[in-house]
């Protein structure tokens, strides 16, 4: 093996190692979705909580936001609710918003009676879940204080995964 081959093989080995370590790290962390949004301003979205009025992302600008798309009929959404509620308690600097999708207002009210959310939830009245590339609930989008989408996750969140993404928007 001459020097040039050695250098090339060595370079390949280093690049391959970094690549494999990165992919391994990726396997340890849950996948995100909606790449077109990442790094871009969050599309406008507003919900109408049962208490009245509207909560829109524009009003929340300046604070990090966890935007959770859910539905009253969706089992995994109920499953992740305690995780979201606990994170809401321990991260007062972060706003949480629950946007009900593919749902009825009656369904949302009934769900609230049995499993109340500790943050504003309601049907989407401005913008759409499609603009976030969400296909089905639950899906969660993480928006930083500048209003930029930093990460998104589809499927029910568990506590370590949520903590990982929260650290991205509220370091």
């Amino acid at each position, binding site marked *: 093996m001459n020097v040039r081959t050695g250098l090339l093989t060595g370079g390949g080995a280093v690049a391959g190692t970094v690549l494999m370590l990165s*992919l391994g790290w990726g396997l340890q962390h849950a996948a995100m979705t909606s790449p077109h949004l990442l790094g871009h301003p969050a599309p406008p979205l507003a919900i109408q909580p049962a208490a009245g009025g509207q909560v829109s992302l524009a009003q929340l600008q300046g604070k990090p936001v966890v935007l959770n798309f859910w539905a009253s009929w969706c089992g995994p959404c109920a499953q992740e609710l305690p995780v979201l509620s606990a994170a809401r308690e321990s991260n007062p600097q972060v706003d949480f918003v629950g946007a009900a999708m593919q749902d009825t207002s009656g369904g949302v009210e009934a769900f609230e009676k049995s499993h109340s959310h500790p943050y504003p939830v309601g049907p989407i009245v401005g913008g759409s879940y499609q603009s976030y590339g969400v296909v089905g609930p639950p899906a969660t989008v993480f928006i930083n204080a500048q209003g930029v989408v930093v990460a998104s996750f589809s499927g029910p969140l568990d506590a370590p995964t949520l903590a990982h993404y929260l650290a991205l928007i509220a370091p």
Partner: protein
Amino acid sequence: MILAYLGSGALLAALIMAGFAALLSFWAGWVENLVMIQVGRRAFYAAAALVVCASVVLEAGLLTHDFSLAYVANHTDLATPMPLVAAAFYGGQEGSLLYWTLVLGLLGSASLVASASLGPRLAAYAAAVLASIATFFLVVLVLVASPFDLLFVTPPDGLGLNPVLRDGGMLIHPPVVLAGFASFAIPFSFAAAALLANRADAGWIAHTRRYALVAWSLQSAGLLLGMWWAYHVLGWGGYWGWDPVENVALMPWLATTAYLHSSQVQERRGRLRAWNFGLVILAFLLVVFGTFIVRSGVVPSVHTFAISAIGPWFFAFLGMCLVFALVLLGLRAGGLKSAGRPAAAVSREGAFVLQNMLLIGAVAVVLWGTVLPLVSGLFGQERVVGESYYDRAAGPLFVLILGLMAAGPLLPWRRAGRTSLRALRWPLVAAAVMAAFMMVAGVRSLPALLAIPLALAAAVTCVVEFGRAIAKGRLAPIISRRRRYGAYLAHIGLVVVVVGVAASHFWQQEKDVTLTPGQQVSIGGYQLTYAGMEQRQLADHSELVAAMRFGDRTLEPARATYAGLGGQSLTHVAISTTATADVYVIFAGANSDGSASFRILVNPMVSWIWAGGIVIILGVVLGNVGQRRAAPVPVLTPAPLAAPS
């Protein structure tokens, strides 16, 4: 129930056969035992035949609606039209892995049948590498992702195919892309076998080049069909979004494009041998990397399969392939000394070397953009790059490649004399005239002023070459050297694609509007009138259809809702296509006051992309089908400086 046992049995038997073929072929190649080499190869054929049986069983399960099979219940239902039920074979994770293995088995068998002339040792090692790859896929199919898993209770109906996949394109896009991916294993196996057997002669390169060309053609078709699918089915207004799934399909294509050119340097001048091995191996490693990325869901993508247990398996497989390739190249590349001296920088060889550097540079740019979320995540803060990164980093490389497409074919192999440089005047004049015309027309975008004139120059170069051949002896020279002229035709096709991409990229117009019935909107000189909307009930979904009058036609963009799938909703775009522009209407939603919101785009010359794609495939097919053996003339002695060869 019986189908599950038949299918699982066939897969298990195929696994045993493939594992046996791998071990036996390695050993038999090592000791050059001709009988055992033959046995090893036949064991690979047997494994391939068993994979065919498993595929037939799965297809039978789908077509007979055997919902006792979890795969059938998860990906089809009674309402799904039959062609799509058949296509669900590759619509889910497990089935698509089986399809991958099927293509590997069939193409691998074909390549082994045709490998007799390469000598028993090389053929044995190739069979061993192919069988090892097949063994890995069969292990995953048997242990982790079996399409023959049974449900405890047989449901009366299935869940149905993902709505995005319920499209006619489903019948052609996924099988071509998956076949493209699988086929890169064939040139890789023969490259690895040649390194193991320490051989790098003309026979090897002709054989490998033929299968690299098959893989490249399938991948070209797959990429184009993917773009067509994104444009017509996903309905976001574009055809290429630098999504990881697109990137991982593009990278092996770029690496193989480099190989198809640099292999000519080896054929004609005996040079770049180690480099050519490196490119073939790189293309396959990129395929394994891409398969891992798409199937593990580690990076954000529109296109990942559901996150599943197979990620770590592909991670381990990629690691093994990387180590195998690096060790093999490290041990053998030193011995692959080039036969001749390097040619002058301004020569055909110089142009190919520079083109290879640019293509590999483009691979590096795309790879970095794809893995950045992971590399940056590993070191702290996750970062992603957007379209502008690719435009700025890969754009200049692609522009330079266009320049080389214009100049390279007119340069002679050894050294460019004055006569051959004079041949460059036609493309230069064409580029200058085009650039001046665009400036006068008011175009000020530098990328557009570079890309389109250079594309025209590349086309003029090919036309000049065709003209010269016809002037010499009508069609006879074109037919007798059809590999070369087929390549020029492919270049012309690529130029047409580039013009379509450039026009739609630089001059796309877009408007978001909310209209009440009867209201008009005008965009890019086109007038559209919103006529109203209606609800339609179809077999498996309902559609809210908006009617948009456009000239004497009515465009009908719609929102489809699939009640059976938790109310999943999907956009159906309406497109009016002409040679100059597409009018592309997306129905964003209906409002309570009777108005409707639309996003309307005018995408110039998108149809050129599809037309150019067809010309590329045609060029490659016409240039290579029926060509028994590529026999270009080696240029090892000094060539006359007069006319370009």
